[in-house]
């Protein structure tokens, strides 16, 4: 393939650029810096969810749960166990970097174990059932955290060190994009698309659909966990209610808006949506706008819901997604393509 190496160069360029940007980040207004970091975290979340929802066609509504696990595990490790670590390695630039990488990966790993646990029911469930089960898992994770006193329970967990910089955020985003794109483009990775497009046919040609589904969940959860770690070390305070259903929906909207199965589109949607939502904060302060417009701008979920309904009615493939071959639906539900009449019957 002609473009084989271009992905590696883009990855490298991404990391170098984020290092350079990070070096100068002191010059940026801290409010803008925070937004730029949130954009990077959202890119990681959206691209990793796209692997599950877009490429593999398994509709997951529990991404915030994985993010919560990563956030809490990494925050707990870096807060409660850093003293011993710094005693052994000294407090300098490299030991902090080492610690941060360590806790991020630990958070990601624990999240991917949860991804494995969620992936297992996906062997038996499809479509809307799976969506509800993943939603349930997300809520169970939240309830469990709320009942864990070691991390503050419902009061939230504060006093987390502020380690997240532009460098970490965008390196992780670049790595996530690289891994997902390379994986899906590889010979092995074609299996993800096959599972999405027609599970029965995939099985018939000898593809281990179970393995692909679980792999997608484990990898997606890993990156969501790392993104959660970045988030926790950026805001320095996390709260279980910050990882609720609404947060999951936010990530799902990024994926749907960008186009399921289009990494570039999803990345763009993550940037667009994060900026748009920040901009709405200003809109709600504009005195010259009618009261009703300002109140709607304050309530971001009304806007989410309208975006979702309008997208599904007018452009279900998202901004950048391509409709699959004629006759095969976006979600890859094998059943619905066979009956043209209103309800898909068995």
């Amino acid at each position, binding site marked *: 393939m002609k473009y084989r190496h271009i992905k590696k160069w883009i990855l490298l360029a991404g990391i170098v650029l984020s290092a350079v940007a990070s070096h100068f980040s002191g010059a940026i207004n801290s409010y803008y810096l925070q937004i730029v970091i949130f954009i990077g975290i959202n890119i990681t979340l959206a691209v990793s969810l796209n692997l599950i929802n877009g490429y593999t066609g398994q509709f997951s509504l529990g991404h915030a749960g994985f993010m919560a696990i990563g956030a809490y595990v990494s925050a707990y490790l870096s807060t409660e166990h850093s003293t011993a670590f710094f005693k052994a390695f000294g407090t300098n630039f490299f030991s902090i970097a080492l610690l941060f990488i360590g806790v991020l990966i630990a958070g990601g790993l624990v999240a991917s174990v949860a991804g494995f646990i969620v992936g297992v029911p996906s062997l038996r469930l499809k479509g809307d059932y799976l969506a509800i089960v993943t939603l349930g898992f997300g809520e169970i994770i939240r309830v469990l955290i709320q009942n864990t006193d070691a991390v503050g329970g419902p009061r939230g967990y504060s006093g987390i060190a502020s380690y997240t910089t532009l460098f970490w955020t965008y390196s992780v985003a670049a790595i996530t994009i690289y891994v997902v794109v390379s994986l899906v483009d590889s010979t092995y990775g074609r299996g993800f698309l096959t599972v999405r497009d027609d599970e029965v046919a995939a099985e018939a040609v000898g593809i281990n659909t179970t393995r692909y589904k679980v792999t997608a969940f484990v990898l997606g959860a890993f990156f969501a966990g790392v993104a959660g770690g970045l988030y926790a070390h950026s805001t320095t305070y996390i709260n279980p209610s910050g990882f609720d259903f609404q947060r999951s929906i936010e990530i799902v909207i990024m994926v749907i808006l960008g186009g399921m199965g289009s990494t570039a589109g999803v990345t763009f949607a993550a940037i667009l949506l994060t900026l748009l939502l920040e901009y709405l904060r200003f809109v709600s302060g504009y005195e010259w706008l009618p009261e009703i417009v300002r109140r709607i701008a304050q309530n971001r979920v009304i806007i989410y819901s309208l975006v979702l309904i309008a997208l*599904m009615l007018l452009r279900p493939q998202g901004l950048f997604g391509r409709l699959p071959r004629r006759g095969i639906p976006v979600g890859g539900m094998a059943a*619905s393509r066979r009956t043209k009449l209103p309800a898909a019957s068995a």
Partner: protein
Amino acid sequence: MDDRRFLGYAPLRMTGTEFLQQLINGLSLGAFYALIALGYTMVYGVLRFINFAHGDVFMIGAFCGYYLSPRLLPHFTGWMTPLGPISVLVLTMLICALLGITIEKIAYRPLRSRPKLTVLITAIGVSLFLEYGGQFVFGADPKSFPELMPDRALEGTGALTITTTQLAAFIVTISLLVALTFIVKRTRLGMAMRALSNNATAAALMGVNIDTVVSFTFGLGSALAGAGGILFALSYPSIDPLMGLLPGIKAFVAAVLGGIGNIPGAAVGGIVLGVVETFVGGSAFSTYRDAIAFALLIIILLFRPTGIFGRAQIEKV
């Protein structure tokens, strides 16, 4: 979600009276779940999709009751007093039925031939719209639901406490269940519903007007959810625009528990879930109460995905 439905701490070992009391509380909670679950199950039976916004119709029902009661109740005095709450209930059910039909027409009908996932995403959108649009219109703060009827404990039940609202909830639920069974089993539209759920293509070929039947199903399910909203608000009189989310999802679990698409199954599933949840809520694990429904759902789907009464369907190529 909150401790509104928290029924008090009790050790795991309980006396016979406590057991019966918890059973009664569980049954009345289960009655609400059953009413909502019926809507899920009917829509699933006909269209094979999960109407995510159903729990929010339940919320709208409670708010209809909130706004209608002060306007309607004063007109019913003297011997007509008992008709007041009934008129509120009936009007709410009508409004909710209209809402359900409108939602189906605007959001779901254009997508009917599209993949199920597209419709599910739309349903999530509609649900969020009702919740947060509700916050926008009704205000986000909880409101206290008016007393439609005197709420007191019945006499002559010994150590047990059965309140008048619990009794009313039972009576209304059972009469609605009977009415629903009659509609589904004995009327032409009910027969069309069953035909559609059995095989949509064949039903259409036999001259069943699919649009009418689907509208009717949505209307029926939403009316039941509206009634559930009123009864729920009578027992737990603090209502807010997000109140439908958790009961909605739990009722879905109840529908799956009974075998989705199966009408008696939904009623039984609702009652089982209500009882299980009440017993867990009264035990030392009360803080995990809201996670129980999800855990139950995952267990059923893993071991018996067709639910208690469901039949297995084979995917044909």
